């Protein structure tokens, strides 16, 4: 099977591998898995005071397409607002990397990971803004 140059580049030189402080208030963490293939993906975003994503990191144990998909997403979300980052679709990822049809599910995992990271960040932010409101 022939993989695209972009996919191979992200696989061989993955961007933004690593971790951010999970406990920090300005960090959102998304942890998702695809049990059918045993992949697990962690994607984290750090949101600045201006509301822009200033850093993103990932750690993925899975196939090359899953690694490339998460690497690409961390690159894409930097400098975006969380609302913008939330609009990233798995189809955009799959198209950019020219994922073969059997690997489309890897881009689904990356979309779900960024959505989960944003949800986690928002949950933290709302707790901080209204400490008593939830009770």
């Amino acid at each position, binding site marked *: 099977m022939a993989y695209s140059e972009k996919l191979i580049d992200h696989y061989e030189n993955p961007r933004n591998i690593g971790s951010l402080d999970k406990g920090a208030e300005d960090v959102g963490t*998304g*942890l*998702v*898995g*695809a*049990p*059918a*293939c*045993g992949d*697990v993906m*962690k994607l984290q975003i750090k949101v600045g005071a201006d509301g822009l994503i200033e850093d993103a990191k990932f*750690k993925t*144990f899975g196939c090359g397409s899953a690694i490339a998909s998460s690497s690409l997403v961390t690159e894409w979300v930097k400098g975006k607002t969380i609302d913008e980052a939330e609009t990233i679709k798995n189809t955009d990822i799959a198209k950019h990397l020219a994922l073969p049809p059997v690997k*489309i*599910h890897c881009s*689904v*995992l990356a979309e*779900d990971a960024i959505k*989960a990271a944003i949800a986690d960040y928002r949950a933290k932010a709302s707790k901080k803004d209204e400490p008593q409101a939830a009770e």
Partner: protein
Amino acid sequence: MDHFARLGLPAALDIEAATLDRTYFAAQRQWHPDRFVGRPPEERAKASTEAAALNDAYRILKNPLSRAVYFAELNGVELPGDGKTIDDPELLMEAMEAREALHETVTPEAVDALAARARQDMEQALAGLGTLFLRSDKAAIRKALLRLRYLDKFDEEARAKRMNLQRVKA
């Protein structure tokens, strides 16, 4: 017909390997193509369909994990298929930490130690399934099977890593 019935066995989580082998080989003899030489095409087609179905049944029931997943399906517990994701933090954190630990190993002995622990966890989780089925606790069955999937994947990755380490050494 479900895979258990096809092999003439009651649907159950635990099956003796010897019993499974015996019933499979007996059934396979019955539908062996050699016995249908010179028979009408419909009969030969049926024999080959039956033989293929028997092979599927045997393959799925032989492995304790795929058997448990199949038995769970028969009992109305569906696991996420291809392209479906989960976000159970506890389960995924365990899987992530295990894979990180494996990633950091540098000796075959260290890989073996991690793999041995994972297999022990698998055996324990498989042994615990029976109780969950007795209680018909579908959520717990589902979670246990998902965890088993990740442990199984870990075992596979540990084998691959071990082979790589040995290749480097050689």
